[in-house]
Structure formats: structure tokens, C-alpha cells
């Protein structure tokens, strides 16, 4: 019964996804396309919950529907360039698309059925992680323990990629091109969000709750869905909301660009530093077992520290991206 309901919801949500994708293909307004892709993100996030990927759904909700929509809107804010969408896709895209699609569908015929517990993908590493990670790391959330401990090297790499992307955006959109104070004041006056007292009053009271929630997600990520990536994105979203409401000037007066850059680097350093500390105490790089008296306690400490590093880097990178995109004159 529950399975039937799940499959029904699965098919319905997949239909919504397809509809959003088709509308994006046909739409001629960038604003509509960006909002459709936000709707797409929300539906795929509900789908991830049905497919038991609660951590992924959490991340997608914060990233897809939140941050990336704000970034895209910040880029198009000046002019909504209408684009003449072609009525029908061009011949080359139809041929490429159909060819690739057919090949991939032939490929799926060899894959295991939806939800098959005997699929090869479930037989090797997963039972080991599900069976033993609880005893080895003392953390119930298997996603967190795999992400932070067993695959710690990978996650370090991902955090460095995020840091590098943030750094590249800083280099591409340097502060030399920012508008003067007057230009900024002028745009603030024209921005409708800024002169709406009700919106401001209500949202300014919610922002502390958002930041508190981010800290909860950060430190409760061991026991429930959550962790550094989600917490960082939520924290960044809270600060970005403040920037949208009160203007970039006020945000930069509280949190200067210098501190944002330092924060971006500090998270990566905390992560790598935890690895080096493990080496210092006689273990391998990122082998947290040596960090405390017992291996389990050590793993727990190490995972907390590196998740904090991930959270700091992600949060400050998101803030830095927002600052870069919303200040430039076009």
C-alpha cells in the first residue's frame, strides 16, 4: 500500500519535472525560465524525499530553490532580455538528442529495477557502511559519517572546488568595478523590496531564526538529516536575505569583504588542519581515530570539526557570490 502510494507520487512528481523542463525549453522570458527552474528544484527535492535521500533533498531545497535563484535574478536584474525561443528545436539538436536518448534507454534496459534490493550497487560497500559505521564512528546518520570520515579525502576535494569557484568569481568580478555610493543609493530607492516596511519588519525578525536553524542543522547533522553543506547554504541564505532587505552597503558595513574572504579560507584550513592534526598524533591524514582517547570518540570529534570547516567555507562562499553579483554595474 505504502509502496503503491510512493510509486504514484514518484510518477506524478516526474511528470511535474518533465512539464517544467518542457516549459523552460519553450519559454521566451528569462525571468520565467529562472522561476520555472526554481519550481523544478522544489519538485525534484520532494522526489528525493520519496527516494529516501533526505540529506540530498535538504541540500537541493536550500541550493536550487534558494541560492541559485537569487544569483540568477541578481544577474538579470537590470534588463529582462526577451529571447525569441525557437518554436521547434533545430534539426541538429533533435538528431543529437534522439540518438543519445535512444542509446541511453537501451542502456537502461540492463539496469536493475526500481527499488530492487539485490541490485549490484547495494551488495558491496553499502552493507559495510550501514552495518558498521554506527559502531566505528558513533554517528547514526550514515550519510554524514561516510561523507566526513570514510570519504573524507573526496569531501576535502569538493570543499576546495567550492573555495576555488568562489575565488574565481571574486577575480572575475573584482570590486574595482563596483558602483559608487550614490549609484547604489539610487538603485536601492528604485528597488521595490527596500521600501516595503511590512516585508522588512517581518523578515528582519525571521533572519535570527534562520541563522539559529543553520547552527542546529550544522551540529545536529550527526543525528538527523543535515551537516556542513546544508548548514552553510542556510546560513548564507540568511545573510543574503539581510543583504536583499537592507542593501549591500549595510551588509558590507557589518561583514566586510575582507572578513568574507578570510572566512572562505578559514573553513578549508580548518578541514585540512584537522587532517594534519591527525597526522601529528600519529595517524594518517584525515584519520580521526587518533584525535581522542578511543577511536570512536576520535572519529566523532574529527567529523564535528571537518563538518564545521565545510559549513564555514560554504556559508562564506555563498555570501561572497551574492556580494560579487549584486554590486557590479552592468
Amino acid at each position, binding site marked *: 500500500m505504502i509502496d503503491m502510494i510512493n510509486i504514484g507520487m514518484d510518477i506524478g512528481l516526474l511528470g511535474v519535472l518533465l512539464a517544467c523542463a518542457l516549459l523552460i525549453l519553450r519559454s521566451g522570458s528569462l525571468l520565467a525560465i529562472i522561476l520555472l527552474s526554481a519550481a523544478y528544484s522544489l519538485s525534484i527535492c520532494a522526489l528525493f524525499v520519496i527516494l529516501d535521500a533526505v540529506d540530498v533533498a535538504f541540500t537541493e531545497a536550500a541550493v536550487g530553490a534558494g541560492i541559485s535563484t537569487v544569483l540568477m535574478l541578481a544577474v538579470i536584474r537590470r534588463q529582462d532580455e526577451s529571447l525569441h525561443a525557437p518554436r521547434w528545436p533545430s534539426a541538429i539538436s533533435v538528431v543529437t538528442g534522439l540518438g543519445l536518448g535512444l542509446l541511453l534507454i537501451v542502456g537502461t534496459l540492463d539496469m536493475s529495477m526500481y527499488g530492487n534490493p539485490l541490485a549490484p550497487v547495494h551488495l558491496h560497500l553499502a552493507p559495510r557502511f550501514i552495518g558498521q559505521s554506527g559502531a566505528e564512528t558513533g554517528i547514526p546518520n550514515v550519510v554524514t559519517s561516510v561523507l566526513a570520515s570514510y570519504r573524507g579525502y573526496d569531501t576535502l576535494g569538493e570543499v576546495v572546488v567550492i573555495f576555488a569557484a568562489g575565488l574565481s568569481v571574486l577575480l572575475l568580478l573584482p570590486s574595482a568595478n563596483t558602483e559608487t555610493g550614490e549609484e547604489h543609493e539610487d538603485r536601492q530607492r528604485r528597488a521595490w523590496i527596500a521600501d*516595503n516596511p511590512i516585508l522588512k519588519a517581518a*523578515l528582519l525578525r*525571521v533572519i535570527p531564526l534562520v541563522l539559529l536553524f543553520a547552527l542546529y542543522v550544522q551540529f545536529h547533522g550527526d543525528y538527523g538529516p543535515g551537516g556542513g553543506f546544508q548548514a552553510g547554504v542556510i546560513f548564507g541564505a540568511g545573510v543574503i536575505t539581510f543583504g536583499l532587505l537592507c542593501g549591500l552597503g549595510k551588509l558590507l558595513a557589518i561583514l566586510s569583504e575582507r572578513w568574507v574572504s578570510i572566512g572562505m579560507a578559514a573553513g578549508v584550513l580548518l578541514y585540512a588542519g584537522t587532517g594534519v592534526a591527525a597526522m601529528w598524533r600519529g595517524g594518517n591524514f584525515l584519520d580521526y581515530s587518533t584525535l581522542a582517547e578511543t577511536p570512536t570518540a576520535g572519529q566523532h570529534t574529527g567529523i564535528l570539526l571537518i563538518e564545521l570547516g565545510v559549513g564555514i567555507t560554504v556559508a562564506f562562499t555563498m555570501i561572497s557570490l551574492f556580494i560579487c553579483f549584486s554590486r557590479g554595474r552592468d
Partner: protein
Amino acid sequence: MIDLLGGTLLILGSAVVLVGGFGLLRLPDCFSRLHAAGVIDTLGAWLVLLGLLVLSTSIIVAFKVLLLIILFYFLSPVNSHGLSRTALKSGLRPFTDKPS
């Protein structure tokens, strides 16, 4: 008994959401559509969340759902207000029977 109450609330909430969805599609202009969206955001969401509150098994889940209800109570009217005010300022006029 509790199951029955929770289930009724969930079904009522879903019905309200469905009605709001029809309204969103059928109503003529931005402002009346915002009214339909407001119905989904307030009554529909509250009924569904109340149903979940009744059905929740642990105190921590109940507390989280309660927080969500409080947040919805304050934020969805603000949300509708912000949208309609922006629509008005960007030049949309409410749809009326009288020719303007």
C-alpha cells in the same frame, strides 16, 4: 481516534490546496490569483500541518511542526503582501468589471 482526526485534517487540507490550485489556474489576474495562493499558503498549509502535528509520534517532531505552523502564520501573509505590492508598483492594475 487520533489517526482518524489526523487523517481528516490531512484530507481537508489537501482539498483546500486543490481548490486553491484550481483558483490559481482559473482566476483572471495576478491579484485574484494571489488570493488563491494565499488560501493554499494559510488554510491549506495549516490544516496539513495540524494533521501532521496530531499524527506526530515524538515530542521533537511535534515541536518542529508547531514552529512551522507559527512561521507560516506570520510569513505567508507577508509573502502575499510583498508580491501584490510589487505587482501594483510595477504597473499591474486589479481586474474589474468596469471598463477602465
